[in-house]
């Protein structure tokens, strides 16, 4: 049986040339962002004495009169209309609830839903009032940092490589085999338990490793980046994608392709 061992190696510091020329205003907590009181304060800032002070470490973003600091890693802040993926951990135990929901959603089920409302203390209420939301059947879940999921018009993508992906804004990414035909009448509450073919399973595993590589190298996740990463990873075996040097290589290629496509 072949065994692979790795020894720790000193980290190479990142070269400045790798990034683009955008001079971002980076701040740490306690830094004064501005003393101009005309600005409204957004996330990541607070008002101290007469000036706006940063409360997280990140880059300053200014939209007209609103200043906020975007931290590197944040807890997910719900916004109305976001798609989220999550697992039911607990449910209200009341009579009406028993009658209505028990048949459809149980504790432990994985679901996709949309944010309906956000309360003042941060609690979120979700709804699955559309046929595209509901219980998720067979597939793979990847948990990433919410700050790496790009805000897009739609978060449900059917990738040409043969699988579909749901990019939850809360950082939960669900990869599943593309359904053969859209079952409009069934709705989202019956799970498809037919066996998944080997080719589909390989595509899904490869996608999962690609997403993990992108996240490790701190790249934003959206349909194009995932697709390019998948295509760049094809020469390698699926299990090799978890090795650091191959991860770096694949993500570097993805980054270059994305840059070429933009510029």
């Amino acid at each position: 049986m072949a065994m692979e061992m790795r020894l720790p190696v000193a980290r190479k510091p990142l070269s400045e040339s790798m990034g683009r020329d955008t001079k971002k205003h980076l701040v740490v907590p306690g830094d004064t962002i501005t003393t101009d009181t005309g600005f409204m304060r957004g996330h990541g800032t607070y008002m101290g004495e007469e000036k706006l002070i940063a409360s997280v470490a990140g880059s300053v973003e200014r939209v007209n009169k609103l200043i906020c600091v975007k931290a590197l890693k944040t807890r997910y802040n719900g916004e109305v209309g976001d798609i989220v993926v999550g697992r039911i951990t607990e449910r209200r135990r009341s009579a009406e609830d028993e009658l209505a929901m028990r048949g459809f959603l149980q504790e432990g089920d994985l679901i996709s839903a949309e944010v309906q409302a956000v309360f003042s203390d941060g609690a979120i209420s979700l709804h699955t009032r559309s046929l595209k939301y509901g219980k998720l059947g067979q597939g793979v879940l990847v948990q990433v940092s919410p700050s790496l999921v790009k805000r897009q018009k739609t978060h449900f993508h059917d990738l040409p490589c043969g699988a579909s992906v749901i990019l939850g804004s809360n950082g939960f990414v669900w990869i599943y085999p593309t359904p053969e035909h859209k079952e409009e009448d069934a709705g989202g509450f019956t799970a498809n338990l037919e066996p998944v073919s080997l080719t589909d399973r390989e595509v899904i595993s490869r996608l999962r490793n690609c997403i993990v590589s992108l996240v490790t190298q701190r790249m934003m996740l959206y349909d194009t980046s995932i697709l390019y990463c998948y295509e760049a990873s094809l020469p390698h075996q699926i299990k090799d994608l978890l090795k650091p040097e191959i991860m770096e290589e694949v993500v570097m290629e993805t980054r270059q392709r994305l840059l070429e496509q933009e510029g």
Partner: protein
Amino acid sequence: MAGLELLSDQGYRVDGRRAGELRKIQARMGVFAQADGSAYIEQGNTKALAVVYGPHEIRGSRARALPDRALVNCQYSSATFSTGERKRRPHGDRKSCEMGLQLRQTFEAAILTQLHPRSQIDIYVQVLQADGGTYAACVNAATLAVLDAGIPMRDFVCACSAGFVDNTALADLSHVEEAAGGPQLALALLPASGQIALLEMDARLHEDHLEQVLEAAARAARDVHTLLDRVVRQHVREASILLGD
């Protein structure tokens, strides 16, 4: 006086430092991918690791939830191999509980808890090698870990210890200097505003000397802030390069 001379005539300490000089500090953020935030710090030979989880739902009894702010829960633990003599109980003993309480007090002052009502923030600190100034190293490591987790804070919390020997205030005590039995003061500071988050001393010190020792500790804490600031900026810069856009 026979025995170890904590401060020589020329003004050098046991390890060759000057009275107000800090030990070499090296720190790294984001050492664990699984935790929300993590950091590792070395202050001379004192090594501490901090891990932060949160903000998340209150674990255990819901009754403990505060309706308007987050609960900060700190746990201090020192490894059995961290001191000269192997420790029996890594956590749960009196000193660890007290340290946990002090850390909680410190961070409740700095973290903007009003932004996360009814949630809990867990800070776990582990000392891997204790060579004096363990409280300070823990606070510094925990600050970096909280920053790594993206939890909003008023400012950095920088801590340092100080002592008093031969009418001179010493900053950043090592184990040898602490064991000698003189007064020791631990100070946690919010550098931008100069506000004190925690000040602790359990020895006898004449009040005339207090200001001198406090000043030495504050100056050392600001030096620590300069170093931690550099570490955090470097980390943010690298991450923003990777993120691109």
